[in-house]
């Protein structure tokens, strides 16, 4: 994606509305600060200077769901936490996306027992699943880029 056509020195660029909107959405997708377990350590590492999530327009982890577009569920979600997770998701303004980071968030991981939700897709709709226990920062970044590709593919029809 990019600017389709430049009109000389007039300072005007033309592109489709979808592209403009998706460009804006993908380049300022602020994640919510939502670390639940050891995956959060890798998420912090992704955020930190070595891997530097701000390259993707994610300068800030927002502590408030009202200011965030992306929920990275980093860690296992207990049955007691599940209503909280859903409430936070409901408080996020549209458009919003969810990444299930790690095996526990994706499918329960090694915790196949009564206390852990067997995949957060039971609670919130998930866009991208990132495998790993915990996933390395590269894997999370790959998940984020995959999500960006998904968002870039959206059309006006999808928004309606």
């Amino acid at each position, binding site marked *: 994606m990019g600017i389709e056509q430049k009109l000389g020195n007039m300072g005007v660029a033309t592109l489709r509305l979808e592209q403009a909107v998706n460009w804006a959405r993908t380049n300022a997708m602020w994640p919510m600060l939502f670390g639940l377990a050891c995956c959060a350590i890798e998420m912090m590492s992704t955020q930190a200077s070595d891997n530097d999530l701000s390259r993707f327009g994610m300068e800030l982890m927002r502590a408030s769901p009202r200011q965030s577009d992306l929920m990275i569920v980093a860690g296992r979600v207990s049955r007691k936490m599940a209503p909280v997770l859903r409430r936070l998701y409901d408080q996020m303004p549209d458009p919003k996306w969810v990444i299930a980071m790690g095996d526990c968030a994706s*499918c*329960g991981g090694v915790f*196949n027992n*009564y*206390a852990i939700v067997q*995949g957060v*897709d039971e609670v919130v709709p998930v866009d991208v699943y990132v495998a790993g226990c915990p996933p390395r920062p590269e894997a999370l970044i790959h998940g984020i880029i995959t999500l960006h590709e998904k968002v870039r593919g959206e059309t006006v029809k999808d928004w309606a």
Partner: protein
Amino acid sequence: MNEYINDTVQSLKDRFGLQSIEFRGDISLMVPPDKIVEVCRALRDDFGFDVLAAESAVDYWPEQTPRFHLIYQLYSMVHNQRVGLRVPLDGNAPSLPSVTGVYPNANWHEREIWDMFGVRFEGHPDLRRIIMPYDWEGHPLRKDYPLGYEEVEFTFNFDEIDGRKPYAKE
């Protein structure tokens, strides 16, 4: 085992008619449920056991009856001695008196035992669940509580299990 703990155990045995068990130098007294508060109070006031270091439970189902053992670990700051109390409890809805009147820190321990084992404590000021959600059914650390939650998916049964999984909608 030193003299102080020997004397303590002996005098408690005489006073309440208890049995004791010793394992690798650690001594425990078997206490019937209706005497637990008296025994705790005697240990605290007369023998200097001023700390309830731990209170927990074990479920021996189905090997043993009575199926539950409540375990109290007491510690004496003054004498640097430890003693354990074991209270056997039978039945699926067991109850015994709470020791919160003697050791206030038993409050949360007893809430946890109620939550995990379903042992009721009579006279407890606030017997609610402490770990599981309030609307939870059952007591998860009982041995007859179902262990697993979800079948493991393989390629041959993936479609069948995945069809039954609840997925959240927008």
